[in-house]
């Protein structure tokens, strides 16, 4: 692997602001461009927290360690700056913005990336949006609906993938994107992620998941197991298979010991 890491997480510890106990307790992780990593772990292991801390969620404060994107300190940046630097998080629970269409939302997000005084060309945007929706095999009418307002679980996740397709991040953090999806919706979402990976082989993906099943559709290069705020094991896709078979019991024992 000749490439230097896109994302470097070193000794990261973090907690919910104003609380006493760290949820992340020294996480080390390096993702190179083009790699797909999966993080698995039981409830409360800190895997979602890791994604949110990298994206800059205001609920959390870091208590140690560092997070860098292409060597730049992410922890010093506001969430919007991180987004503009190339970080994208697909939310586990996407938020509704009543009265704002997906198209308008994305236009505003792209406009925010331009210099002051520069105006996004509406026709260019329309073209881009249509092209992206075609790539993901989406009905163009979808873009006219208000963001996540009255959406089914599957629609919310598809909207996240559409946003990712339009914003073209360097690093996609997928926070339990598979949770609550039936198998058809899961396939659609996985298919979308794969199309984007094919299109941009440099894009790195960090998949946070409970279940092995999404990894049948989005094949990871590396699988990490997270337990009690630390990465306790890393390996190839076989790690996920083994986990599925034997569960987290041995980590629990090791932790107690």
């Amino acid at each position, binding site marked *: 692997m000749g490439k230097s890491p896109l994302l470097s997480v070193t000794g990261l510890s973090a907690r919910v602001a104003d609380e006493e106990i760290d949820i992340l307790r020294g996480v080390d992780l390096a993702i190179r461009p083009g790699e797909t990593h999966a993080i698995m772990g039981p409830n409360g292991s800190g895997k979602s927290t890791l994604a949110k801390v990298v994206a800059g969620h205001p609920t959390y404060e870091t208590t140690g360690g560092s997070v860098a994107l292409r060597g730049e300190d992410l922890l010093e940046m506001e969430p919007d700056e991180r987004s503009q630097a190339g970080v994208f998080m697909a939310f586990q629970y996407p938020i509704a913005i009543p009265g704002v269409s997906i198209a308008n939302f994305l236009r505003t*997000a792209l406009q925010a990336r331009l210099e002051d005084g520069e105006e996004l060309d509406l026709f260019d945007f329309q073209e881009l949006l249509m092209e992206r929706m075609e790539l993901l095999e989406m009905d163009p009418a979808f873009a006219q609906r208000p963001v996540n307002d009255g959406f089914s679980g599957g629609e919310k996740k598809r909207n996240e993938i559409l946003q990712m397709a339009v914003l073209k991040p360097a690093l996609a953090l997928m926070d339990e994107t598979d949770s609550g999806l039936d198998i058809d919706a899961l396939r659609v979402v996985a298919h979308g992620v794969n199309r984007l990976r094919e299109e941009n082989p440099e894009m790195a993906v960090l998949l946070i998941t409970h279940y092995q099943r999404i990894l049948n559709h989005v094949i990871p290069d590396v699988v990490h197991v997270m337990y009690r705020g630390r990465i306790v094991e890393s390996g190839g896709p076989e790690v996920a298979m083994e986990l599925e078979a034997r569960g987290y019991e041995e980590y629990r024992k090791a932790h107690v010991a």
Partner: protein
Amino acid sequence: MPSNEVIQGLGLDDYKFGFVTDSEPVFRTRPGLDADIVRQISARKDEPEWMLKRRLKALKIYEAKPMPKWGGDLSELQETLDQTYFYVKPQEQMERSWDDVPDSIKETFERLGIPEAERKILAGVGAQYDSEMVYHSLKEEWEAKGVIFDSIEDGLKNHPELFRKHFGTVIPAADNKFAALNSAVWSGGSFVYIPPGVRLDTPLQAYFRVNQERLGQFERTLIIAGEGSRAHYIEGCTAPVYSTDSFHSGVIEIVVERDAYFRYTTIQNWSNNMYNLVTQRALVRQGAHMEWLDGNLGSKLTMKYPSCYLMGEGAHGDILSIAYAGDGQHQDTGGKVIHVAPNTSSSIVSKSISKGTGRSSYRGLCKVYDGATNAKSNVECDALLINETSRTDTFPYIEIDERSASIGHEATVSKVGDEQLFYLMSRGMDEAEAMALIVRGFIEPIAKELPLEYAVELNRLIELEMEGSVG
């Protein structure tokens, strides 16, 4: 005008400035109000005797009525009134030069994207401008159809019978203290008459004629939409009104005759020292349809409740209102629907945004009289709070004297939450852009009803306001 008049506040929190003019008045009454001043106003306007009598009678009513104790805080208003010049001859307002307008205001206009010509009007600079041409060609078209679109003064002068038949019939002087005050000292405003069956595609826009006579502090507008006619009237604009006044009390009377459709749109953004107390009401006859689209921004206190009196069978009234209360501002707004006849229907949709220490109150009345069978009314009021210090209240009054009435009321309060902000920021918008997008979405159901240029201005204004809400 005093030799040095400091003009304060644009209504935008970020723009504090002082501005000095030295212009001398052509004519104005002395501060305060009495019968002699009312006589002077009437004489200046060369009015018929009946109008002078009406004014004097209204003055007595005004003096007799106590200051309202409900709504907003009016405890300091009397002091303002004692210092108010109740009549200032409009021409003096036209003498200000564009060069005298402070850069900060020009910059605000620039950022709002207001056309050059319109900026001058807003700044009180009386200049001829391009839309004059547009106005003249429209005016010819309207005149050919028998439409009257005049200043209220010219309405009284040129159409005395029509004027007298309707003036004060929708809102009598005795209606409330400020309607009485307006009836005594009114000056400026529009007189509109749409003949039966006439349909206008282009809205009648008040600013077409603002440069002929400046919109007064005590504007009075009378509109008669003839049987089966259809028209839209637009007044005001989202840009901050640059004014030396600190009190505005208008009266808008509209008669919507049988089977007519009339929409009245007003968006106003007053400077933040302003008391804005307005009475606007429509009488809606059989089968007719009235729509109020009302936007209130700025001011210290606004009390304004557009009303529809549904007088004839099958009449319909809609009230859409947006209020924005910034720091230190109180918007006490809403609407009134009065069902007098059978099979009448109405809806009120009210949206308010409170930012900083701003306070918005929804105050509404739905009344159904005995005999107004099968009346239907639906009220929806939604409040959005931007900061922890922002406040909102709801005062829905419902009086039903008819068993068959069907009344719905729904109220929601939402706060801009951390999760919502984070979601938007994680897509690359900064906090102000994120706030502005949330607010725009919130008012979208009403904003989409606005003419495009007004919707664009409103959106830009919200962006400016949200810049001030962060940090």
